[in-house]
């Protein structure tokens, strides 16, 4: 069994009277490819925001690589090795595709402010190294030919890929993908599944992803956690989750009200 990378215990987040996340327990081991699913408003994105320090938790504990991260700032958590993408794409729209990736490297830049201004050898060496790495990452997600385009002008699916490249540039060991396949056509989704698998198999990343495209999640993830109203209602392999009555009820509503609930995308 590989080592534990993330342990979430009793994580709770209350917005006024609303329990967004209610006592979430979740453990990820290095090299896991896990999914977090649930109906709209189940609290999935809030979980990501709690993990990355964008939202403060009401209760609970999160330990990442053996270090407690609740209460740390977003940028500190990122530098510990937790990278993420956003559900509503949040690229730096006016900057070029390449610059977006380069920003990802900045957090780990070693050269000082002055050596950057005067382009001292230390900075130039680092700049060369980072440029080469950025080119590799763009090639990995297939955007190498668009490096000089404005990020905001890319097609939707390409913007999602650029978000992944930018998150990879921060050097994560755990990658949180928030609906990476939203807005992609079936071909793009298939390519994305291949990419995510390569990230895990070749680069050794641990991946936790939120997704509504059930075919994508079920075929890709080895372990799935299902949230509804902030609570875990099921967890297990795709097969176990698919047949779980609680999951079916959460997605389709109670048997009597079938058809009034939300449609399943599968």
């Amino acid at each position, binding site marked *: 069994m590989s080592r534990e990378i993330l342990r979430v215990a009793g994580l709770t987040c209350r917005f006024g009277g609303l329990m967004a996340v209610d006592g979430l327990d979740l453990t990820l081991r290095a090299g896991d490819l896990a999914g977090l699913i649930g109906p709209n408003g189940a609290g999935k994105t809030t979980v990501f925001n709690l993990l*990355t320090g*964008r939202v403060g938790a009401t209760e609970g504990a999160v330990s990442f690589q053996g270090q407690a991260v609740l209460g740390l*700032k*977003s*940028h500190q958590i*990122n*530098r510990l090795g937790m990278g*993420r993408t*956003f559900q509503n794409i*949040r*690229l*730096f*729209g*006016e*900057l070029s595709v390449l*610059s977006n990736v*380069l*920003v*990802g*490297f*900045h*957090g*780990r*830049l070693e*050269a000082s*402010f002055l050596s*950057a*201004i*005067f*382009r001292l050898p230390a*900075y130039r060496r680092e*700049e060369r190294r*980072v440029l080469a790495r950025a080119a590799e990452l763009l090639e990995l997600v297939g955007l190498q030919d668009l490096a*000089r385009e404005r990020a905001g002008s890319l097609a939707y699916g390409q913007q999602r890929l650029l978000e992944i490249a*930018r*998150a990879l*540039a*921060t050097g994560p060991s755990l990658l949180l993908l928030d609906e990476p396949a939203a807005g992609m056509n079936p071909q793009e989704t298939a390519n994305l599944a291949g990419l995510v698998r390569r990230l895990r198999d070749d680069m050794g990343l641990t991946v936790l992803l939120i997704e509504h495209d059930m075919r994508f999640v079920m075929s890709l993830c080895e372990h799935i956690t299902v949230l509804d109203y902030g609570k875990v209602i099921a967890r297990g392999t795709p097969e176990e989750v698919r047949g779980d009555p609680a999951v079916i009820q959460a997605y389709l509503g109670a048997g009597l009200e079938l058809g009034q609930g939300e449609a399943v995308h599968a």
Partner: protein
Amino acid sequence: MSLREIFSPGPLPPAHLTRRRDFWLSLMGIMLLAGLLMGVERLAGGYWVHMTCLAGIYLVLASGYNLVNGVTGQFSLAPNAFVACGAYVTSLLTMAPAEKALNFILEPLVWPLSVIHLPLGLALVIAGLVTALMAFGMGFTVFRVRGDYLAIVTLGLGEVIRVVANNAQGVTNGPLGLKGIPHLTNNLWWTWGLAVVALFVLTRLAKSSYGLALKAIREDEGAAESMGINVFWHKMLAFTTDAFLEGMAGGLLAQLITTISPSLFTFFLTFNLLIIIVVGGLGSMTGAALAALLITFGGEWLRVVEEPMSLLGLSVPGIPGMRMVIFSLLLMACMIFMRRGLLGKSEFSWRWLLAVLSRRGPRP
């Protein structure tokens, strides 16, 4: 639209291929500038020397301000505080003790300042450091808020500094101000020296990894933070760098006009700078520099319209204030036809200029 878009020569060669050529072109540009300054110094009258100095100072002020407002996207309204701080510090350090004693008639100047007498270069650096330190202190309050709130807080702090200058009789001489600040004979070289250095540092900064991080904060602060950028310290970096340069420029401004009082550093100073950086293109250092020159000299050229003239046999008497009407119309035209300013968010580059020129020339 911006000039960059109007004269768009298509894709440019990558910057690293032309770095050597661009370096020599920049060096030639600086030498050309030095030649021009020498010409102004030798041939033109004191009035033109004064205007050229003022343009250089505005260039530094505007491009420094642009680092905070344009590149980092923090709508600060505090530069008048920075300029005031730099002007007072430089003046108090460079005035002769006897001159200071003549100025402070209501209340004597506090002790260490009353005897200090430093050369200008040293005084300017100290003024820059003091202003940067002040900005550092202000930053802790200012960067707790964002957007409109940040504008209001900085506006307030700008006023606070002015009120302090008005009331700290023993340090600033209050509303009486300081008179007889030593006027430099070679002010032209000081101001333009600072302008060249400031523009060099700022364009390099904007292009570096740190500049990218600042632009990322402008585009999406939350995303930048999630990408491992310490947003607070990067804003502080921009704010203090700006303050350092504006403090030095403020010191040179005091040396140029030789008389300062708190009423010189009102919100209108900030407002002028704001106009300059918007016209130049928020986020473009070279745009801010270009606009600073255009607006300082343009205001003088427009004096023509205030003089009596005869149009088609019709004699029109001079109308005082007409120049501001025309200026406003020009600004409006600029905002309608070049909504993103002269250069938009991009920088002037030799690659762009050469591409535009070569497209105009005969094709092989």
